[in-house]
């Protein structure tokens, strides 16, 4: 009899576990179904055909720099304004939030996988990776970079991206210190009247050192169909010039194009 009881208890345990697992499976299927696929090429949002423009590059948001930040930015402008000096001219990408807010003039491509979302900005081939779930690691274990380190999670049909480990940047339209952090919320917005998909992202950049108030803005893109996002080789001319000088000095003919 005790043996029978034990078997019944075991069976009940299995049944409850199975129901729980099945429930979790259903729940994860339902959640996954809510998640939009952002994969594709996107360009600057231009609104509906014939409409008088629309919010494209930078909607809302104003940078309120602290005196320390304003001086740092002004120093940079004073030595570069009216010259060819600039990060982009040296083949250096914009870094966040410039890479995201400036994208669209050159298209942006998104490749979405369950554990990671890749964003490729054509200009300077800047690549951002949004690490999701277990893929995300402690940001402090990475070197600071111009685009920082981004971890992400889903909240319903919205992808929430948190970016930290940014470098101090004065060479950006959106200057910030290395204490800045950026929150982006990506979602599919209302399509254009012809059905073209629209992607939007609400961005908030906080910086306790360089910003008096957070920068809050929304960026929109519209889908590009039948379109190639190109590679963006940029630093080769610098190397070619260097080679040319070496060949010239050696009295040899350079045949490489």
């Amino acid at each position, binding site marked *: 009899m005790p043996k029978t009881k034990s078997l019944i208890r075991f069976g009940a345990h299995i049944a409850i576990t199975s129901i729980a697992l099945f429930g979790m499976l259903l729940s994860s299927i339902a959640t996954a179904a809510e998640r939009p696929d952002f994969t594709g090429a996107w360009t600057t949002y231009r609104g509906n055909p014939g409409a008088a423009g629309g919010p494209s590059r930078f909607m809302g948001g104003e940078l309120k720099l602290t005196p320390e930040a304003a001086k740092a930015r002004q120093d940079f402008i004073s030595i*570069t*304004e*009216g*010259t*060819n*000096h*600039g990060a*982009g*001219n040296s*083949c250096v990408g*914009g870094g966040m939030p410039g890479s995201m807010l*400036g994208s669209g*003039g*050159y298209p942006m491509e998104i490749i979405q996988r369950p554990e990671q979302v890749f964003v490729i900005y*054509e*200009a*300077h081939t800047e690549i951002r990776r949004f690490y999701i779930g277990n893929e995300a690691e402690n940001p402090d274990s990475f070197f600071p970079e111009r685009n920082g380190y981004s971890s992400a999670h889903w909240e319903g049909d919205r992808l929430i991206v948190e970016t930290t480990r940014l470098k101090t940047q004065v060479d950006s339209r959106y200057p910030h210190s290395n204490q800045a952090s950026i929150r982006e919320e990506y979602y599919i917005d209302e399509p254009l009247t012809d059905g073209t998909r629209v992607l939007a992202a609400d961005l908030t950049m906080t910086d306790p050192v360089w910003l008096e108030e957070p920068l809050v803005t929304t960026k929109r893109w519209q889908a590009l169909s039948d379109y190639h996002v*190109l590679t*963006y*080789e*940029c630093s*080769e*001319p610098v190397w*070619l010039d260097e080679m040319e000088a070496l060949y010239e000095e050696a009295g040899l003919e350079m045949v490489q194009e």
Partner: protein
Amino acid sequence: MKTFIKFTAVIATTLLFSVSLYAHHSAAQFDFGNTVLVEGKVMEVRFANPHLRLILEVTDDARGTRDIEFEGHSRNNMRRQGLMPDMFIEGDAVTIRIAPMRNGEDGGYVTALRTPSGEEIGRVSGAD
């Protein structure tokens, strides 16, 4: 009205070629409001990112004959506008529209180009 349309077209073309310039460096040294035509012989051309480099041998009354280096849009955007490297070669005569240097020195930013075969990338024709 015609003048307005022409003006608008020139502005649109200028914007077309310069829209992403500001991502690379300040454009303050170029006068996009007063573009001019330049004719010359291609001495060197490099379709590159972030900018086209074009050196033309130019002759004018004021400064004689010399090589002038011009800057243009990125290779990627040039391709999107239809400009490809096989459309002209060194030694060819081309006409370009440029936003000249504000300081009056030689050089400028190429906003449009007419190839030896007469093909126009951007708007070369129009009032100076």
